[in-house]
């Protein structure tokens, strides 16, 4: 069975639409895409994923709780950082701003990685709190294989127990 992968990224089908191509060509992963926090949560509740790649700056989607938080935090993807709040809701619920119930029991930090435009320097504490080991900063020069690399890094770390 192909490892199941979820990529939570609002630009997945627009600016970054070439990134999944590298994953599809290898044929090694079952890649699914969620474009916002509500969509992501729906996917995560519906299926178990071997790797979840999360962007920090994502829109809220249809769910009222995420929309409310988005508005409270400035009605802006950059200031609201819903991807991060989604991770707190799943991996560190005590410090979460949105309660997710029930949290699927397969959820664990070693299955998650961040692929974001934000700098790692600004998120050292979050990574520690969430126990996430994989972090990749999106840059303009990044090749279209970046997503594949992050997925394989998460899977490799899980496989070797390094996460």
């Amino acid at each position: 069975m192909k490892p199941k992968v979820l990529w939570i990224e609002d630009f997945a089908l627009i600016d970054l639409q070439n990134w999944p191509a590298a994953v599809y060509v290898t044929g090694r992963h079952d890649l699914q895409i969620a474009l916002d926090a509500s969509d992501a949560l729906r996917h995560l509740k519906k299926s178990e994923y071997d790797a979840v790649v999360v962007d920090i700056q994502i829109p809220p989607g249809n769910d009222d709780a995420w929309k409310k938080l988005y508005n409270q935090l400035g009605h802006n993807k950059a200031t609201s950082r819903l991807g991060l709040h989604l991770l707190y809701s799943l991996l560190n619920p005590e410090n979460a701003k949105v309660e997710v119930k029930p949290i699927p029991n397969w959820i664990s930090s070693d299955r998650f990685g961040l692929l974001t435009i934000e700098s790692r320097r600004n998120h050292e504490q979050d990574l520690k709190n969430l126990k996430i080991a994989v972090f990749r900063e999106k840059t303009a020069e990044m090749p279209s294989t970046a997503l594949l690399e992050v997925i394989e890094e998460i899977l490799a770390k899980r496989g070797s127990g390094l996460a």
Partner: protein
Amino acid sequence: MPPLPPQLTETWGAAYLQILIALLVFAFGVPALILQVTLPEDVRRIIFGRRRMASWLIIMIWLGLFCLAFVWLLHPCPNGSSSDWQNILAGAIVTVTIALAIGFWWRNLYTSARERIARDLEDSLIKTFRRRGFLEENTLSDLIYLGVHGDPGIEKRLVLEAIDHLAEKVQQSEKYEGDELEDVIRDLETTLTSKDKPGSDRNFSLACTILTCVRNRLEDRGWSSHPDAQLVQSTLGGLGVAAVETKAQSTALAFLEAVASDRDTLFEMGLVALRAERFHIATAALNKLEALAEFSLPLTADRTVNLLGLLAHFWNSGISTRRRAESFLARLKDSFSPSLQECVEKSLEYHYGIARYDTADKLAKMLQDIKGAQVGQT
């Protein structure tokens, strides 16, 4: 002392009559002509279709009352000896006629905005559904007419948004039983795939979101096999294939994500994409078909007919596409049950049986190559 109202003398009566006739001619006739010329045909058809009868009925009744009043009640007296109530009534007739004319045109201009019409139709449909448990056919037809004949972009978006709200309200209603949105879902496709005015990329993306939301709400109720859910699936498929043919890659990929569990649609979209040399979409469809098949091993014939069909097209399309097909078979050729060869044969029969002769031919060619390779190995 307050000034007296004008007495209903013959002169005043004639003046009133002239004003009223002028009003009737200019207040109703000229603006009607302007609307006829300026309003888009689809908007005009709906406005006049839905409101003309009532409006003209009011005007005709008013005209009748006015004639009756002037002929039988307010007959002008040459000596100005008409009573107070006659004078008041005459004044009232003229005043109300002016107010009626202004009100009539304000209402028509206000409601002729496409957005307003769409919202009115949506409200009307929701009210009817809440009261009677079904969507009123004529009103829905008007909404869809507006969508089909609206220009791509904003005009179609207004109708799609009305459909979105309508679907949400209907699905939230206790009267909803899982099949009341059939016409709405079917018409959504008509709105976007009309030959003269097909929807824009954004229209397609919005439709994808609307249909996905309808399906999500059905799934939340555990109604995945209800008629509306099945229709959503087939509509997503139809629009998905249309998106692969005519829309941007991002739009097609959005549909591909939405139909990710439907093998037939993935096959269709993958094949259309491959033929159009939209390799990213084709490979994404193949990847999803592979994932569905690989979900549980061994790979049996009934779960791989579409996968092998698309693989056969990849196999016979070009060097790189063949390489992609070979990489899958190299990895999993031993996971087929009873064997890869037999699964390909069954897939060939399946596609032949539903008149997909080109796919059957490609499978026959792939089968030949696989057999040849096996002979070569031995």
